[in-house]
């Protein structure tokens, strides 16, 4: 099977039903995408397929027809994406385990809707759990990133 991850093409030899999450983590050594619930309940494993947020823990790798972006492909410490920069500005992360998924969901939201309301944020982000309770800062960082992206 061929897979495009963060602009790079990979040939993998796995069962088509293996969830994308485990291909990323154990076959391609991309550990930024996290395992937590394994049943699309928490959003820690969120990645983009053609810009759309999907839960990689329940996405069979054989079902994918599109380019995958993971947190590593969004931005690096030296070249931060605007959403990552907003996360750092607001000091959002605590344990940080859910934050790759939070950032991927937030980025997908802002691509569709560059001026989200609190209700839009509730709608888009309620699939991403955070046990540390960083929700207030996640909300503030999304508003901040939205402004940055809109250039206001």
């Amino acid at each position, binding site marked *: 099977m061929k897979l495009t991850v963060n602009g790079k093409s990979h040939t993998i030899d796995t069962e088509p039903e293996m969830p994308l999450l485990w291909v990323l983590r*154990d076959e391609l050594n991309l550990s930024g995408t*996290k395992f937590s619930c394994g049943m699309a309940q928490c959003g820690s494993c969120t990645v983009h397929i053609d810009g759309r947020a999907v839960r990689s823990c329940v996405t069979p790798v054989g079902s994918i027809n599109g380019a995958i972006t993971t947190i590593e492909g969004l931005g*690096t410490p030296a070249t931060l994406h605007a959403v990552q920069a907003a996360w750092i500005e607001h000091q959002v992360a605590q344990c940080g385990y859910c934050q790759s998924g939070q950032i991927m969901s937030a980025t997908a939201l802002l691509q569709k809707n560059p001026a989200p309301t609190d209700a839009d944020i509730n709608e888009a982000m309620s699939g991403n759990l955070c046990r*540390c*309770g960083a929700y*207030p800062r996640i909300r503030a960082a999304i508003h901040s990133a939205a402004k940055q992206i809109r250039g206001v």
Partner: protein
Amino acid sequence: MGKIATIARRTFLIGSAAVVGGVAFGTYKFKQKAPNPLLEDLPQGATALTPYVRIDAQGITLIAPRAEMGQGIHTTLAALVAEELDVAWDSIRVEHGLPGAAYYNRALVEHNVPFSELDHSFPAQAMRSALGVVAKLLPLQITGGSSNVADLFDRMRVAGAAARFALIAASAQKLGLPAAQLKTNNGSVIAPDGRRLTYIELATTAVGIELPDSPALKPREQWRYLGKSMPRVDMVAKCTGTATFSIDVQLPDMVYATVRMNPAKGAALLKFDATAAKAMRGVLKVVDLSGGVAVIANNTWRAFQAAQAVQFDWAEPSYPTSTAAMMESIVASMTEKNRDSQLRNDGNIDTALASGKVLEAEYRVPFLAHATMEPMNAVAWLHDGKLDIWAGVQNPTSARDLAAKVAGLDASQVSLHVTLMGGGFGRRLEVDFVVQAAQLAVAMPGKPVKLTWRREEDMAQDFYRPAAVARLRGAMKDKLVSAFDVRVVSPSVVESNLGRLGLPALGPDPKIIEGAYDQPYGIINYRATAFRAPAGRPVSYTRSVGNSYNAFFIESFIDELAAQAGADPLNMRLALLTHEPSKQVLSTVATMSGWGQPLAVGRGRGVAFHLCRGAAVAQVVEITVTKEGVKIDKVFVAVDVGTALDPRNIEAQQQSGVIFGLSSALFGEITFANGAAEQSNFHDYSVLRMRQAPQIIVKVLESGGPIRGVGETGVPPVAPALANAIFQATGKRIRELPLRKHIVFV
């Protein structure tokens, strides 16, 4: 000896373990300095002037020997050293470091004395002091009980100042100048003529300098990192997917494993059939563990799939197997025979409640899971006669020792690399998953094994926060509480945990009643009695431990008493409090929330106060009752930490505590059938989501009193503040958690 024997008699669980563990060493060892753990494993060319500072050609690394599980401790601990060492914030690296005796936690053990945090009487201080000695002897390197900052505030500043002293002295030698003429600036020593030597250049010379025991520390007015909101040292990595949790450790030739253990935790495995599992793609080995089975494969998902294909015949546990039977055992233990402690008995409660109007109520809370976002996991690698382990644990010394034991090695042959943790909340004080990883490393010698639990295993194999039941009686006089009698029954988490660590557990457990006996309310007749239920299913510490339920019990019941007498619940508490910082947080939260100003119809507000680990915290919760259910709008928090080292992080911890506490208050409940939890994942063990999260407004106060930790303080008051708001808005008094059993939330 006489003194130690007295302490052992009077000491409570953790203290007794420390006494018994430490007594053999005698006091001479206490006076000895613990060896510098960095020297055991020092790379070529590196120096370690103190256990907290390593300097090599690449730069300066500060050791923060406590679990970073989200609370920001690495940042605050690094700031303590960096402040005195005088290094640029963006130049430092921060590591947890290997476990070491030098990193013992004295404050945590001192927290376990059966005295209120505000009690500075001779007996209280004498016991704290004695236990501090034995904590060093044991030694317990533990992250828990919001104890880090209090424990390390002086120690790590002294380490920074002592290292700076040595670097200046080394520079004086090299330059032939008196040390008094030299200054430091961001990692360099500077001479009056402008010559500059970096710490990196000076480090090897500084090694020969004798360190001062008590170097002068900067006065607060000169702080440039402490007292400021510092950028967290782990923030960029956590926002770019480059932070390494133990689940992310990758080693060459690694294999991947998972386990399935008896869901009735601790009970045996009678037999199993792994024929189908062994035939599945990628499966390398099936390992019989005591009480369950591990599957090792060449990919984690393949291990998961194969483990699901194993057939099990589990043994019954020795403890009650249903929620009803467990609760029955707990309730039945509220008898004189099971009385564990009576840590408060002011006035004469029996006389006070013998006549007049007496209010009585029973309150209950359920078992709770920790449900950290990162499921339990560890990497272990047996190679070249030694065992390397990567794990996220809150007590690395115990984890290392138990792993060594199961692997048949000496602790000196085990290197435990403590990684960042995807949440802890007390779960990582237990090390069952580390021991399993060590067993698997022994089964696959030469190969690094990464053990990952499925979420379902994590939920099933948790050591839950135990259920607890309280019976309260109280009376009012002149619109003030005049009599308050609280009896609490619960299994002892300390007994359960110490047993697994192989430590003795003598004496009563103050954690059962903490947060109920030690509150600074000047109620004339005030009695708090704890009863200990039989051990039952294994249980353990959960964020704020006994405070997590005792605050709900007493702060709800005080509200009931106020309502019955027509007293304002906030002003009545203000009148009862005898501790100035406690009064301050309460009056501050009153101002913040506009307490006393009328709310629109269908809205309500409730208040709760709590003294948690010595930090006073007050919260007001505002709700709206809608057609769809109760909506939590806002939570106002005022907290006094004595000295605020990092205000923005303290705010984050308060918000975190509120959301964690709301998850438990609204939804949290583990129930049992056949000894197994009936909840398995986040679909049936709900936690708060973004759309349910209220606005949380925090004010941090500094009374200048003793410095206090904040990791737990936000948790205890939010359940009673919410229940009190629901009462105010609806007239409905809820005496059981989770609240969703009695009311619908939006």
